[in-house]
């Protein structure tokens, strides 16, 4: 649990306890209601910290609740209700906490299972993000040399902006620019595709995918979306050499993807010449 969650839990625990403490004895139904409200902080803590935390929260709430056994000189039924409430505290803490622990395990398991890539690379489905720099060509060459001749599938992903009107005085030259860029990129992608086919990857397994962006969206968002939608085993991309200032200014696609992609990421690092920045 982080600091904020701990503070919320403490506020809830003491909030319920203090309000309950000051309810006049005659308001029986309010007492019953507040008895149930003790469950809220217990469930909250269990949900964020697991079984141990849940049980600990239940014990703490029981101690806080204890004075009510002695203060309320009420019927036997009411005391039985108090005992039932205490049991409920512990059941809640235990089960909600266990649920949280097991779901966390499932997620970790899933992530670990995903990391197991067939050792030969056979049957792998690879997403190859292309920017229009010479480094993409170098990366394709490098990849072909290592993985060529295998039965793998590669999708070449190209992300482009379909609305460039804000870079031009009017719509016409903007559309012209987009279409010219499209033609140049198509030729570039074909070249890369041929390189991979020449390295022995089956022709029908090398695909080209163009993804259009409108508005200001980081390229890495689009790659992450594609990873989510497609069933890929590995992400391949080029890592341009950047200074700290460049990284600050322009961002860095591989760094973001290394942080956020849920599958293995293979980044091919370039020399400064190859890294001549993508546009």
């Amino acid at each position, binding site marked *: 649990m982080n600091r904020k969650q701990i503070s919320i839990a403490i506020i809830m625990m003491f909030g319920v306890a203090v309000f309950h403490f000051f309810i006049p004895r005659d308001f029986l139904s309010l007492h019953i209601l507040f008895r149930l409200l003790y469950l809220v902080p217990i469930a909250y803590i269990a949900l964020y910290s697991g079984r141990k935390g849940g049980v600990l929260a239940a014990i703490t709430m029981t101690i806080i609740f204890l004075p009510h056994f002695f203060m309320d000189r009420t019927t036997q039924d009411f005391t039985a209700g108090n005992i039932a409430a205490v049991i409920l505290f512990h059941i809640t803490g235990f089960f909600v906490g266990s649920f949280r622990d097991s779901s966390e395990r499932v997620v970790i398991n899933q992530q670990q299972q995903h990391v197991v890539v067939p050792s030969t690379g056979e049957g792998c489905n690879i997403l190859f993000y292309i920017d229009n720099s010479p480094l993409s060509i170098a990366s394709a060459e490098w990849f072909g040399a290592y993985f060529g001749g295998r039965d793998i599938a590669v999708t070449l992903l190209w992300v482009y902006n379909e609305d460039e009107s*804000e870079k031009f005085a009017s719509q016409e030259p903007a559309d012209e620019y987009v279409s010219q860029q499209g033609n140049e990129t198509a030729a570039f992608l074909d070249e890369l595709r041929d390189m991979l086919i020449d390295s022995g990857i089956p022709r029908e397994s090398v695909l080209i995918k163009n993804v259009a962006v409108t508005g200001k969206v980081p390229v890495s968002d689009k790659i992450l979306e594609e990873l989510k939608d497609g069933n890929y085993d590995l992400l391949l991309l080029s890592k341009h050499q950047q200074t700290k200032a460049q990284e600050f200014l322009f961002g860095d696609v591989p760094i973001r993807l290394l942080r956020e992609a849920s599958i293995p990421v293979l980044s091919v690092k370039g020399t400064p010449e190859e890294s001549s920045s993508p546009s």
Partner: protein
Amino acid sequence: MNKNEVEALITERGRKSSARMRIVDDTSDFMALNPGDVMVLNDNPYLITRNEKESGFGQDDDPKFWVKRTISLLTGEIKIVKLVFFEEFVQEVGGYKIHFYRSPIKEARVLEAVRGHSLFMHGFDVNDNVGNNVRIIDFIRGPSLNKLVGNCNMSHEHYFHSRLLEILTGVCDCLQSLSYLHENGLVHGDVRWDHILYDRDQKRYRWIDFDYNYDFPENPFGMDLIGLGEIITCIVGMGGCFYSDVKANPMFKGVVDQLQPEDFSILEQNRLMNLRKIYPYIPERLNNVLLHFSGYATVFYESVDEVLNDLRDALGDLEGVSNTN
């Protein structure tokens, strides 16, 4: 709209029409449009009263002939009318050449997106008779942030104790509102402190000037964030602190030699970010926000909210040191 009708409206507004008055509905040649001329846009006549200048950079600034201050002759309201001046230019930022665009279409899109958002200037776009995209903007009465701070005639230490908290607190919401643009896939484009005006009527800070654009595919809001860092540094430092200023100031004689390259902006190597070195009373947390934009930074802010969360936390430390005397 004929000349007599326009002249009648001008008289109605308590003004005299000039003998050389031109009435135009094609605004392409904005250099030729002078105070006293009238632009008719969408059947609304606008009387030009002056060409605007960059706010707060002295009186000698060249006028911006494409930004006209006008009076709407139908309503009597003051309007800023921005005419089409598309520009593409390269500017060096941190030693890197960046393409910038001055795009009317982009400004029109932002105006549309911020309609009803009180922390931005308001307006709309119309096409003139030949299809130029003209933006008609409500005039904001009040000084720009740089003028407001620049007018504090006092020592930095006095400013720090008496004004800083109030100014920073006031401007926080305005700075944070940039994230509204970003969430909508838009950038401000020219985040500078002279593009924030203090609206005296509404008593709040508001953004102006949305026509700049840049294109960083992976870090689309990068320049906005850098601008944000600069603005916060300028507010905290009571203006930009450059190496030459520090060196020339006898007060900092003992400090100059202790300055390291990392104390300066990661992009502008002569802009001091580690202000605590020259103003040691600046609290650490506030200074740390600035250091995220300095050579010391190892992790960078990725969103406006991240900057503002830290800034708002840091404001807590100023509460103790402020007095309003």
